[in-house]
């Protein structure tokens, strides 16, 4: 009975528009109180959960993303894609898909991508006569590619919570990310033909090469990260720090996106963003800790084992569950809420945790763009002054594509596991 009461309260607080960290923190406090555990344990737990070196990759990657966003990197990537795709009908739509995928790979954050690309591409697309809804849709949806393409914050968090190798997860994300970008690309190509969208003037080969050379330094960041991690020189956190420093140098020295004197301001801005996530992490891990202690995950495994669930049935059920949770909770909270419960159940049910990581993060991408709490929807609505409803309508075709890709990722594990197995063996 009181479980129902608890759920009503939990979703009531969310509906009241309370910050997520407060919802999770208050819920955890109530659970502690009801189960008679001392409150000091909650405080101790909260601060101890943050004491994790892997977790520190997060603020550092967010810093790298902030430097990138301010530093003219986005513009360089947009120029690069426009140079090569200009002559095609609806080219700005294609430019959005490609440059979002590139920027996502560099910054590791979907929301940063939507923000950076939205501020550049949205005015440009509206200027050229694209319907605003379509422009919002393609930018918002393409921004989600960042969730799976490495270096990805979501995969780092997944790795922390489920104790999986982050480099392995990064490799696993590459092909699904490309599949998604490809699906969007083909759809924009088709839609642009049907709606007769404008094309941009084609550029000479000389201009193309010049623009490409200018975009190369931007690619230094994922290069540093991947070399650092796969070359075995650095931990994830160290490579995140180096990515941030590289991003800073590239932005300030190469692109002159902001003067040296602004560095502290940009770092502070990045830490604000990181603080939002880390407070949620702290409270969610406390909440998850209570969950684990309550024995609910164990019962879940027993239940699933006794029902004789086939692996595909389990995966289908998980996808439906995650999509439903994604309607109410934001990405990081979902991960931190669900994974501590699910992680012990994966291997007994015949699911590869790395494969599940990609299914999970792809689910989160869907969650980023579907109502009511898809963060990208709000980011785009904020930077464009368009009502959220218009963003949602624009994003709908991409949402359907995302769901199709999700089906493929779920039921073709080779797509995910082939690359990490080739590099690390099985």
């Amino acid at each position: 009975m009181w479980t129902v009461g608890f759920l009503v309260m939990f979703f009531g607080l969310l509906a009241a528009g309370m910050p997520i960290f407060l919802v999770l923190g208050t819920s955890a406090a109530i659970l502690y109180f009801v189960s008679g555990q001392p409150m000091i344990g909650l405080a101790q737990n909260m601060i101890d959960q943050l004491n994790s070196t892997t977790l520190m990759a997060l603020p550092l990657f967010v810093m790298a993303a902030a430097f990138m966003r301010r530093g003219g990197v986005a513009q360089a990537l947009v120029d690069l894609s426009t140079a090569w795709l200009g002559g095609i009908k609806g080219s700005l739509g294609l430019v959005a898909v490609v440059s979002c995928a590139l920027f996502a790979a560099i910054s590791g954050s979907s929301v940063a991508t939507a923000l950076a690309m939205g501020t550049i591409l949205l005015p440009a697309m509206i200027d050229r006569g694209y319907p605003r809804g379509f422009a919002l849709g393609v930018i918002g949806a393409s921004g989600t590619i960042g969730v799976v393409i490495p270096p990805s914050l979501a995969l780092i968090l997944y790795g922390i919570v489920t104790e999986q190798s982050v480099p392995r997860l990064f490799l696993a994300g590459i092909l699904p990310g490309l599949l998604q970008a490809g699906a969007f690309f083909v759809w924009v190509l088709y839609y642009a033909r049907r709606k007769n969208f404008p094309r941009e003037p084609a550029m000479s080969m000389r201009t193309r090469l010049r623009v490409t050379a200018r975009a190369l330094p931007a690619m230094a960041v994922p290069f540093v990260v991947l070399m650092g991690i796969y070359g075995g020189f650095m931990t994830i956190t160290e490579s995140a720090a180096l990515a941030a420093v590289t991003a800073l140098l590239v932005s300030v020295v190469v692109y002159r996106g902001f003067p040296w004197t602004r560095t502290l301001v940009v770092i502070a801005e990045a830490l604000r963003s990181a603080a939002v996530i880390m407070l949620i992490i702290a409270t969610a891990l406390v909440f998850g800790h209570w969950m684990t202690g309550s024995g609910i995950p164990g019962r879940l495994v027993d239940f699933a084992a006794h029902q004789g669930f086939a692996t595909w049935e389990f995966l289908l059920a998980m996808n439906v569950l995650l999509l439903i949770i994604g309607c109410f909770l934001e990405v990081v909270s979902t991960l931190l809420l669900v994974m501590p419960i699910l992680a012990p159940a994966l291997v007994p049910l015949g699911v590869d945790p790395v494969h599940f990581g990609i299914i999970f993060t792809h689910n989160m991408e869907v969650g980023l763009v579907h109502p009511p709490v898809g963060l990208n929807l709000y980011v785009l609505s904020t930077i464009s002054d368009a009502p959220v409803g218009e963003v949602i309508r624009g994003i709908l075709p991409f949402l359907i594509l995302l769901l199709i890709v999700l089906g493929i990722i779920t039921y073709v594990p080779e797509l995910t596991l082939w690359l990490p197995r080739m590099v690390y063996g099985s």
Partner: protein
Amino acid sequence: MSAPEPARAQGSVARILFVWGWIERTIAGLLGAFALVIAVLQVFGRYIDPERAINWAEEVIVYIAVWAVMIVASELVQSDGHVRPDLVLRLLRPAAQRWVEMFNCLVAIAFTSGMVWYGWAVVSTAVLLDQRSSSDLQFPIWIYYTALPVGGGLMLLRYIIRLIRYAFLFDPATMTVGHAISHEAPPELAIPVTE
């Protein structure tokens, strides 16, 4: 002629809030920059002079970053930067939004008070037992733990101010969803949406 009393009073309050937020952001920026420097020293130090290379960089980065996060969390309350699903809130009339926001503030005040009270208990326990980190650094862990009550305390003050604003200085034009409080800040300080 000078501005009428209440307006002037509000002006100075706004200035205090502005300076307060600026201090928090600046401290966070300095801490973040410091963390970056330490990380780079560790990575390159290992190759340049392995003998004297530091091995506690990541540990110190944790302490610095968590302190920065806890300090800047308060500024996020002021600018309405904490992620929250506001779809239901948007459907409400301003008067109803006001009541819901006041309720949210009260819950937040309770929670952040808990952060201060129990956070302080955690700190005093660590001081009493003289807990140290397990690395070479032997860092006194209470310094790290203090971030919790300090962060909670700063947020508590912000939520009290927020509650007072919604209770006594409510302005439907600027304080309902869609007109975030952050929009009152000077444009050059416009804060981008959170990640």
